[in-house]
């Protein structure tokens, strides 16, 4: 039966879960906001540019990947829109970004559930790259 207790429990669970997530979200969010305002990400993107031909993308697209991996999908889409990509290239970069994005924050959230996250991050980055290579070959 649905009683007042049901609502009380739902609200209590919701607030508890939200609080647990808030504790990890705020520090990471502050960190990535600072990161966004430093030249670190463009520098890393430059180092990765030569490898982009393996997934059929121009060198400049590495910035979109790095922004997506470290910050979020919106940052990556902002960069993608500034490039002139074909439908195939957009599909490739979208797939790579969907496998791995927002890594700092999402890993912190996953860690909250009690797992070791280094393996998860490696898995995501590996699958991200493989999906790019795969789609570049099949489309």
């Amino acid at each position, binding site marked *: *039966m*649905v*009683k007042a207790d*049901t*609502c009380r*429990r*739902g*609200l209590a*669970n*919701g*607030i*508890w*879960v*939200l609080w*647990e*997530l*808030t504790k990890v*979200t*705020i520090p990471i*969010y*502050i960190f990535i*906001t*600072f990161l966004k*305002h*430093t030249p670190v990400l463009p520098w890393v993107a430059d180092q990765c540019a030569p490898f982009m031909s393996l997934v059929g993308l121009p060198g400049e697209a590495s910035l979109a990947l790095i922004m997506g991996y470290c910050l979020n*999908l*919106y940052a990556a*889409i902002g960069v*993608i*829109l500034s490039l002139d990509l074909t*439908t195939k290239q*957009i*599909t490739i970069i*979208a*797939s790579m*970004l*969907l*496998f791995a*994005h927002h890594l700092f924050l*999402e890993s912190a*959230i*996953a860690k*909250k*559930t*009690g*797992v070791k996250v280094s393996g*998860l991050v490696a*898995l*995501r980055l590996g*699958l991200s790259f493989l*999906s790019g290579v*795969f*789609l570049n070959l099949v*489309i």
Partner: protein
Amino acid sequence: MPVVEVLREAVTGSLYNIFQMACFIIPIMFFIEVLRDLNVLDRLAGLGAPLSRLYRMPREACLPLFAGLIFGIAFGAGVILNSIREGHLSIRDIYIINVFLVICHGVIDDTVLFIAIGAEGWLLVVPRVVTALIVCYFMSRVFKPPADHLPQPVPTAPGDGKADSPL
């Protein structure tokens, strides 16, 4: 770099982020409790029975899996935290759910973002779901389930195990 400006952006941005999560998490936690008291939750978990059998997990594991698959990883993790507190999941189950969700989550809203800028939608969804299913299948075979979850998990009464929360 103007530190004060950046700090202000960080604080307002993170508060906004929390607010967005609150808009999702609190109503849905509410909704889950209502479903539980109407005994709909057991039937809903039954829909995931083939998946939980495949991965040799308790039926309760499907709830965080589906929640994360549709609503995103923060929400999936929220439901996992709640399930852990209720004592339904072993560490093995938590790993399998996490691996599934990091590969594949928020399949609707994230995909739509990219369809909007011109990507092929089905090429974004199908390979990801298939990859998650396969990787988790291998994990479920490499890591053996704890003995008490086999062959069929004994359903735990709602509310049990709250006292011995591992968190």
